[in-house]
């Protein structure tokens, strides 16, 4: 994984010395953190949050670490957005940075299956035996996205990204139901992977590049990294708290 710095949240919390006794004030610290949280959904910039020390012009630049072809990335953007769309609750996959998250993950150990057993011989097996393809995740993703584009051409004679939402859903559903032929893998598995990767990117800590400004956590009511709930755990009422990132702990 790349260690991209989320500049907007660099300032604060020197909680490296974690003693249980110091945690009683967790809720108060949380309030301070909340005050620094951006609400505008824009890409983070080092500006007003200050404290970057070097004139405050460190703009976080986004780019692709795995995909080389912009069309494939565009298909990924639209596909993830259909899985987790923007609505009145808040941003969807694109607004949350999910496609970038997936791109970055595919460039690293996740995409390379480097902590998984990839020794031959490969055989198809039963569904209950799990993933048996020789394809690594990054190979599977590329092929899957290319197949989505091909499906768009053969079904609608158009690029996937130019389809109506319902048409994209029809193609995604065909993958979900295993109706699309893939090489060395099956479409159902690819769809499950795509869906899970989308949720990972939406709800993972923003240090990974998705869940921009923790908007997905806000929608869901999850406060992210909080050192302690010992003062709230017995509350009869639902406790709303502004979220914060585990990245905030780095001093």
């Amino acid at each position: 994984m790349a260690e991209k710095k989320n500049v907007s949240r660099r300032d604060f919390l020197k909680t490296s010395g974690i003693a249980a006794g110091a945690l009683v004030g967790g809720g108060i610290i949380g309030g301070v953190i909340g005050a620094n949280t951006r609400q505008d959904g824009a890409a983070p910039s080092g500006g007003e949050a200050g404290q970057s020390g070097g004139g405050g012009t460190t703009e976080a630049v986004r780019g692709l670490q795995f995909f080389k072809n912009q069309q494939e990335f565009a298909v990924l953007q639209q596909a993830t957005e259909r899985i987790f769309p923007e609505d009145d609750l808040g941003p969807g996959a694109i607004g949350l940075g999910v496609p970038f998250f997936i791109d970055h993950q595919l460039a690293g150990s996740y995409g390379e299956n480097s902590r998984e057993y990839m020794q031959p011989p490969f055989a198809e097996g039963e569904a209950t035996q799990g993933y048996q393809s020789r394809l690594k995740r990054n190979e599977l993703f590329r092929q899957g996205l290319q197949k989505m584009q091909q499906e768009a051409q053969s079904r609608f004679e158009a690029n996937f990204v130019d389809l109506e939402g319902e048409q994209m859903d029809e193609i995604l559903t065909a993958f979900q139901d295993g109706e699309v032929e893939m090489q060395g893998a099956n479409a159902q598995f690819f769809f499950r992977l795509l869906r899970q990767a989308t949720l990972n990117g939406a709800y993972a800590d923003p240090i990974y590049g998705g869940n921009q400004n923790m908007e997905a956590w806000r929608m869901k009511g999850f406060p992210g990294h909080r050192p302690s709930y010992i003062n709230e755990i017995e509350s009869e009422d639902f406790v709303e708290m502004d979220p914060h990132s585990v990245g905030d702990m780095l001093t």
Partner: protein
Amino acid sequence: MATTLDKVDVVTVGVGWTGGIIAAECAKEGLKVIGLERGQERSTADYSMVHDEYRYAIRYELMQDLSKETITFRNSRNQRALPMRQMGSFLLGEGLGGAGTHWNGQNWRFLPYDFEIKSMTDDKYGANKLPAEYTLQDWGITYDELEPYFDKFEKTAGISGEDKNPFWGTRSSEYPTPPMKKTPLLQKFETATSNLGYTPFMMPSANLSEAYENPDGQQIAACQYCGFCERFGCEYGAKTSPEITVVPTARETGNYDIRFNANVVEVMKEGDRVTGVRYYDTVTFEEFIQPAEVVVLTSYVLNNAKLLMVSEIGEMYDPETGNGTLGKNYAYQILPGASGFFDEQMNVFMGAGALGMTIDDFNGDAFDHGDLDFIHGASLSMTQTGSRPIASNPLPPDTPSWGAEFKKASIENYTRTLSVGGQGASIPHRDNYMTLDGTYKDAYGVPLLQLTYNFTDQDRALHKYLTERAAEIMQEMGAKTVVGRAPISDYDIVPYQTTHNTGGTIMGADPNTSVVNNYLQHWDMENLFVVGAGNFAHNGGYNPTGTVGALAYRCAEGVIKYSQEGGSLV
């Protein structure tokens, strides 16, 4: 080729709960102990930034590197076994503390019924209650015999709890610390189960309700209810783990060393004795032989069995004939339960791994099975372990699994869903067993362990009955929609279920039907001990660690006794 090191009194393979307990007890007695741990050193300081669901829970930061070693799996003997290429159904640990680092901390003693399950079932229901292919057997030890060891483990771990369960065995002393906080969500369960005539009690927890010093002088902190236990290490040292208790206890004696990055591949033997172990340094790939007076296998269930198999110690179980013991009685766990959808938002993201309330009214033989087509049952609990947003997307029936409707429903219900879940007993079956795989190998050229496993009719009946009870409780708790868990069909190694694998190196009173005696001493090799959940002759209706801890203390006593007297301990 291999470098032979200086002989020690005791070598343990793996340093989790069992390896740590053996080390602490033996080192206190003056024995020189070496722990070989294939993973790395780690401590509370390594968990300071652990509140990261993606890294730890989804990407398995603390778990075994499957590229080096996994298992193969098939549902039945007529299938081709294939490797478990990705982690799923259960999570194999790695590194100091093992699964004792990433556990939830739910700490139980198996029931008196569990240890004498065959005799007690036959006495009450006749010998044909279950068909003959269920290879049920007694454990060769009783609850009362094991009680002092349970007591000792609970004191080491500082377990928080209350002795209010009428169905469990008699305790010789109170829990070392009082129960955790009874939160408003747990009170819903308490009220509902009381209304239904059951007896709810606070789950025994290794997330401590208050700071505690154990009899060895180790400090365990008080739980902060941060909601990150299972799959995580504790940044407070408040979830009792080997690395904050038994490991430092062993080290403080001066008689204990741990060698990290040491992956054992063989137990060496000569005649009817073992002489030590052979291992690889996983960094340099150098090969070493560590000679020892006593070898104790203290790794995970699957690896303990594998090491005996590759070292050709004991007779392999043959499902065709029923002969042999090594690899026999592999069991898992059956997970009945029900979810309930509520109108009000609840603090589901707060909690702790063992923050829960339980009833045992449908566990063991607490209820009559005369008219039922299964034995045993499950503890039914409601836990507030801290729901996290990637993994927790509860959906009412007929909701799509993606798209606009999915997003709304999963967000809406994240804070409005509770569940009652059972840890259901798993009864061994002739066709569920472990052996060595003939095709696939690990990074050291050693065959992978092969697992043949499927759910049985007993499992399906237990699951159905207990799911109905869970749903009734959820109804009584006032959920607007109650959804029981879907009936189980074939076991699927893909979705996470539970890391409560058991069996394969079972204990017993008879060398013809068990691998080790009730000191966990190998029947064929008197200076070899094998300890862990692999000793369970079946799996009970609880999480296994409390019983594993008790067996480890029993084993430690055996090792010490053997070192003084030699010979078979039974």
